[in-house]
């Protein structure tokens, strides 16, 4: 139930207006890294819309997560500039390093979640990788693997 207390706190800063749905979802996700079923129900009550309605909106946007995320999020850019400069090799190398199976994005120990993202706007320094909030440019496979190792202990 602690989850709901957190969500309720967020809801107090919003009016019960449907237009606030996406900002509410964003704030709620920022709290735990994903949207739990309890959080969605609570938000539905607040805005007077059904959980189905919320899922239909939330699942449309790439930003929203419905499962528990790893402690660190690694995002490997797969935008155009990064693609032509070898972003895919970086992604595949990190995927292998984290021993992720196809379709799996979070490691079993919940240390890492791996995401592919289309462009962070640092294209001039492609290929780009972002870990949590830090942007790393001019990536190579070996630098990427070294960074993963550094974050493993953190």
């Amino acid at each position, binding site marked *: 139930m602690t989850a709901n207390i957190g969500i309720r706190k967020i809801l107090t800063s919003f009016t019960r207006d449907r237009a606030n749905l996406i900002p509410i979802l964003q704030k709620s996700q920022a709290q735990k890294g994903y949207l739990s079923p309890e959080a969605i129900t609570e938000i539905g009550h607040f805005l007077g819309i059904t959980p189905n309605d919320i899922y239909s909106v939330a699942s449309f946007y790439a930003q929203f997560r419905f499962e528990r995320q790893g402690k660190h999020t690694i995002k490997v850019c797969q935008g155009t500039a990064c693609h*032509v400069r070898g972003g895919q090799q970086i992604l595949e190398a990190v995927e292998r390093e984290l021993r992720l199976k196809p379709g799996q994005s979070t490691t079993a120990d919940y240390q890492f979640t791996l995401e592919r993202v289309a462009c962070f*706007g640092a294209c001039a320094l492609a290929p780009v990788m972002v870990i949590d909030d830090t942007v790393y440019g001019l990536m190579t496979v070996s630098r990427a693997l070294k960074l993963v190792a550094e974050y493993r202990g953190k």
Partner: protein
Amino acid sequence: MSFNELLNQATSEVEAWQNSGKIRIFIGTGTCGRAAGALAVLDTINKELARHNIEASITHVGCIGLCYAEPLVDIIKPGQPRICYGYVTPETIVQIINDYILKDNPRPDLALGTIGEGSIAGIPLLFELPMLKSQVRIVLRNCGYIDPENINHYIARSGYSGLNKALRMTPDEIIAEIKESGLRGRGGAGFPTAQKWDFCRKAPGKEKYLICNADEGDPGAFMNRLLLEGDPHSVLEGMVIGAYAMGATQGYVYCRAEKPLAIARLRVALEQAKKSGLVGNNILDSGFNFPIAIREGAGAFVCGEETALIQSIEGKRGMPRPRPPFPATSGLWGKPTNINNVETWGNVSAILQKDGAWYAGFGTEKSKGTKTFALAGKIVRTGLIEVPMGITLRQIIYDIGGGVEGKDKEFKAIQTGGPSGGCIPASLLDLQVDYESLAQVGSIMGSGGMIVADSGTCMVDLAKFFLTFVQAESCGKCVPCRAGTTQMLDILTDITEGKGRPEDIALLLDLGDNIKAGALCALGGTAPNSVLTTIKHFRSEYEAHINEKRCPAGVCKNLIAFYINPEKCQGCSICLRNCPVDAISGDKRMIHIINQDQCIKCGTCLTVCPVKFSAVVKMSGEKPEVPDKLIPVGSWKKSEVKE
């Protein structure tokens, strides 16, 4: 407060800072700078200044666009011109502080150029560098100069004087000024801005909305991010001017969540503008009210499309709807709404600070003014540039960008306009960059992304990349886009995997034409462009994939293989140790062999093989002779195995 009071306050603050007699240091801490390590450099600067007891002011600035040379640090010693240092590392900044700040050696070897009056022997003028020389900086007028988080820096450089002037004009006069400038929308379609404003102004209704489109979804472009990070007030000023001209009552900036620094700096700017009475109630005591709110996009490319964006602000799935009705008459919550791109707004403030005729003096007859472009991909000098319309692609790629990187590589194509755009081959490099010329060759201006492809880029793979993107981002509402792009992607995937059939090319062309004709919005309507233009200009690459099962650029995984040249291998085992899937067999001083069934073609062996051996080769469509069992280095004789 009146504008004059604001201006006086800003000027005296900035002058006091300039004449403080202190050393001033500027560091580019935009996203590019950070990605290149600017924060570590900043850390070292702080430590070194403290260690030597140097009194200096440090100012964070946005990006000047020389992203290839990031991190950038500028230093002004009193009475000296501003020196811009590039490729700065924690090590070189220690040297620069020691040699230039503590002593008087400006270290020309580490400097890129000087800015402002005066010169320093051995250091060129920054704006004489090839990357900057042919640029005309109107939108980017302040980027890299001012502290984006200090409104006084903006005001002291004519900021908000355009708004001050506009508030003394009638709305019709403002629209006439924009009309005279010839400004067209910078978000992609190039619709005349004055005309759009006029529609919205004339639309009946008391409540009207104004939106700044900062979604910037083109994967490979960063014009809007850079402007918002480097000079957010120029965009806000443009919005308030537009709101006054159209009678808008509420503004929104819709910004993509993947650009957190742009959002953060915009928030700071908005707070400051509110405090100074430049946004919000009773703007500059004129009685005009215009609040602005920020909405973060949640990661959907289609939400850059104006009708989808409106749905998204309303809290719904971002699905486009047919137009008409256009947003100008029925937009956000059914009310008249005007949407312009970040760069369009940045131009509006510049135009009102000077005038329309001045702006129209740049560019071509139909495409006036300047345009920013993000140069990326296989080009020497990557970064953000602003050039007058009408400049040729050749000038952009060679004079400004320095040509393709890698001595053994050749220029192949430039992709403009992102997922909606197309690829332009070397034979068209003298093409002028303006809305009409780009459209004529099957591409578009788009928002300004330019990705350079060289001989190591596979055009079929690039087309597949864009199609994968649009197929994933298709909202699914209309069948031509949803089913058509899926079908095209399947065919392209087959081709890149060596399963293409000769009739596939005709099928792709046919599908492409049908999707273009039938799609609901411009996402689908332009989705086939990358495929159509690559077939048009690079058909032989498609044919090599289909008929010879060969990828000439050596990119498509199913069509390439890595081998170890038995004549060159020295048996050092570096590749063996680095192979992530243990696909290499070998032993000390034995010729190593790649087991093709196990190889995942990651290319690690090629990267790690010492340059002096260069024994690993990548091949497509051919197969060299290699030993089938381990033999000692030096014992390999050609055809030994075969005969």
